[in-house]
């Protein structure tokens, strides 16, 4: 059972990549990319979790209390922001792609060959 979170992280990575490879719509593809990214959140937070620990915020818990790792939370916070930014840029590119090609289907683009 203790492998479950890591298994879920691996699953999200693979299923998201599957979605990207099979996607017929750029917007769909971009959302699949956020699924891939959510794999890293799950992995990081699962790594930093400590049984019985609470959040490392000492507003109303004694300082001797067992807490979970604060670093992974910091790393994941950064990660969440990165997700939003990359998605925004990609969506802007998708809008332009639709303007150029009249479609969002990667199969019907193809300005670049060889």
């Amino acid at each position, binding site marked *: *059972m*203790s492998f*479950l*979170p890591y298994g*879920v992280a691996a*699953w*999200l990575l693979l*299923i*998201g990549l*599957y*979605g990207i490879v099979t996607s*017929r*719509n750029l*917007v*769909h593809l*971009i*959302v*699949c990319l*956020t*699924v891939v990214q*959510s794999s890293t*959140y*799950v992995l990081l*937070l*699962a790594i*930093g*979790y400590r049984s019985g*620990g*609470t*959040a490392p*915020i000492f507003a109303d818990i004694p300082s001797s209390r067992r*807490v*979970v790792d604060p670093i*992974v*939370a910091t790393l*994941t*916070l950064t990660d*969440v*922001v990165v*997700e*939003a930014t990359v*998605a*925004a840029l990609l*969506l802007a590119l*998708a*809008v332009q792609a*639709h*303007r150029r090609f*009249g479609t*969002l289907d990667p199969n019907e683009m193809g300005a670049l060959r060889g």
Partner: protein
Amino acid sequence: MTAVQAVALVAVALGGTAVVFARDPARQALVSSVFGISLAVLFLAFQAPDVALSQVVVGAVALPAMIMLTLRKIIRREEVDRGER
């Protein structure tokens, strides 16, 4: 692992799968918003309230909003195109 964590993990795995298989982008935006919330619940279960809060505001609000606005922009263009031809 607590029961809450296990349930949230399974929900996240299913949610991610549902997002990938929601092939229509407008529906996918909604599904991904639900997925975003399930991730936030998982983060709470992992004792990361800061991340959960970020995930709610980004994954359940900002990202779906951007997707919907993108689609709107694209659909508007298709309408204009059709009107012209």
